[in-house]
């Protein structure tokens, strides 16, 4: 139950202490052979308390806590979704222009029987892989690879599934030199002109233009505790208050959570997470994401390329319009 390697967030401290205690009792029972009803009862009582506490915590996460959950290192990443949802996956690398960029991973595969192109930001899961994937912050080559894969999807008439999880595009010298903004703009454009269904799911952080470049789809969904924002809360705070420590206030002010974005009609669907968040129940969460994707793919079945483009265009043009607000 309690995992010693688990990363607890600051606000989960009391819970961490409870779970440590439960573990201690269990170990004690295991080593001393003490299986007295008292100990078992105490363990059960504590476990009940821990579950209640977890449910209470996660039922009312404020925007800053959601930001922390969205960035949780154990939250399922693209690699996990790909393994859980895509069969016969063949990764395809490189932009054919300059280099490979592992911050965005993509390829061909089969999703519940359908041939698809999958593309996602990959943050990595340990130090080595985080460095390899540049913490999910793509350079121009990542976006150009995504464009290349969308071109391929168009050619073979395949739906595209994107998984968005990035703090933003990488702000580096080389990235600027090689046209970071042009790459992002072209990737967004490619999403919008695609003649096959494009389903985007924000699984963690949807950070700024680097996210939009993969998230301009027919359907945009968010996991319950993911965030989607124009700039990171830290970035916003450092501009507005010259103090990145006020990120918490910025997260509140910018309205970055799934219910906020649903209300603004920027996302079409929120996928609920099990109590305690996706990182506590990755398999369940990923199947829920898969189910939601499948439903939308079925709904888009039979639509012509022109219809798909038109639907996508209307979807985005309606956002924030006075006459579109009921």
């Amino acid at each position, binding site marked *: 139950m309690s995992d010693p390697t688990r990363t607890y967030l600051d606000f989960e401290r009391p819970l961490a202490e409870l779970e440590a205690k439960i573990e201690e009792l269990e170990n004690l029972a295991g080593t001393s052979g003490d299986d007295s009803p008292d100990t078992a009862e105490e363990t059960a009582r504590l476990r009940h308390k821990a579950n209640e506490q977890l449910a209470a915590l996660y039922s009312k996460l404020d925007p800053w806590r959601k930001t922390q959950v969205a960035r949780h290192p154990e939250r399922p990443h693209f690699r996990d979704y790909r393994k859980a949802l895509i069969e016969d996956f063949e990764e395809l690398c490189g932009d054919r222009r300059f280099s490979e960029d592992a911050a965005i991973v993509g390829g061909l595969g089969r999703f519940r029987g359908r041939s698809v192109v999958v593309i996602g930001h990959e943050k990595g899961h340990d130090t080595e892989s985080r460095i390899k994937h540049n913490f999910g912050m793509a350079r121009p080559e990542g976006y150009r690879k995504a464009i290349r894969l969308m071109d391929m999807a168009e050619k073979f008439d395949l739906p595209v599934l994107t998984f968005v999880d990035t703090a933003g*595009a990488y702000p580096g010298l080389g990235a600027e030199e090689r046209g970071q903004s042009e790459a992002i703009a072209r990737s967004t454009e490619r999403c919008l002109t695609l003649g096959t269904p494009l389903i985007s799911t924000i699984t963690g952080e949807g950070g700024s233009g680097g996210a939009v470049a993969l998230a301009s789809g027919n359907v945009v969904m968010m996991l319950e505790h993911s965030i989607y924002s124009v700039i990171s809360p830290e970035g916003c705070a450092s501009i507005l208050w010259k103090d990145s420590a006020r990120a918490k206030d910025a997260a509140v002010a910018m309205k970055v959570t799934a219910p906020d974005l649903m209300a603004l009609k920027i996302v079409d669907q929120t996928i609920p997470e099990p109590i305690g968040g996706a990182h506590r129940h990755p398999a369940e969460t990923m199947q829920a994401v898969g189910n939601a994707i499948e439903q939308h793919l079925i709904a888009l079945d039979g639509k012509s390329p022109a219809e798909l483009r038109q639907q996508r265009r209307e979807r985005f043009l309606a956002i924030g319009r006075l006459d579109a607000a009921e």
Partner: protein
Amino acid sequence: MNWLTKITPPGMSKIFSKRDTPDNLWVKCPKTGEMVFHKDLEAGLFVTPGGHHMRIGPSWRFQFTFDGEFKELDTPEVPRDPLKFKDDKPYTSRIQAARKKTGRDDAMAIAVGHIDGLESVVLVQNFAFMGGSLGMAAGESFIKAAEEAVKRKAPLVVYTAAGGARMQEGALSLMQMPRTTIAVEMLREAGLPYIVVLTDPTTGGVTASYAMLGDVHIAEPGALVGFAGPRVIEQTIREKLPEGFQRSEYLLEKGMVDKVVHRRDIPATLGRLLRVMMKRPGSSVRASLTPPPADHVVADGGGH
């Protein structure tokens, strides 16, 4: 208070206050430090003798770009402050202040007129209005300008100037990236030219959407154009950036813009490009630029 204000009788101080000399009579060139008389600056299209292109607003841009008469179009209405955003001041009062300062509704202005005899829609982003930031109003104006161009079968020219997206509108401002991209697609489908003139500064979400999707990219000399701001990059890579990094000339070298053009030559360049793109015969005369009447500068919240 200095010793002078202490010893002078009330009322007398006014005579000595610097308010008595109008602001901006002399303007310091940021490049050379040279003091330039404002009339001379105007006559030089707000380019200092040292070649520094100062920031200018929509009224000047329209005046400089069109052959003669032009008509400004109303900018579309958008929901106001949908997030009820508040930092030190409410967002609504920031908008009020920017409106008072610039005399304009938001950061974009649209006009229709002729460039080298060719009817064109021109869109100008105004850095003086909350840093030119791309929010719902600017995005909607961009779409309107593109639709107007399609309706008139006319080209669209946009002068960009912005720090990026408008944070106070959160993800709604972020959505202006795909929304403006759709507008660019409308022009593509209609086979109409879309020319971007990059001016100082153009960064963030603006560069990462419509500013980098032009058929032709022209940049004014010395303009800062990039995705991330130089400060953010320095913090990320913990290195000093090279001289001239993210400036127009650097972008030309890296292949991101087609040409760097002096403000004085932009209308003629636009005219030549547009006439060729639209398969019209070449025009022999293009009136040289003359300085517009001085009252225009007030409307944009200052000429620089």
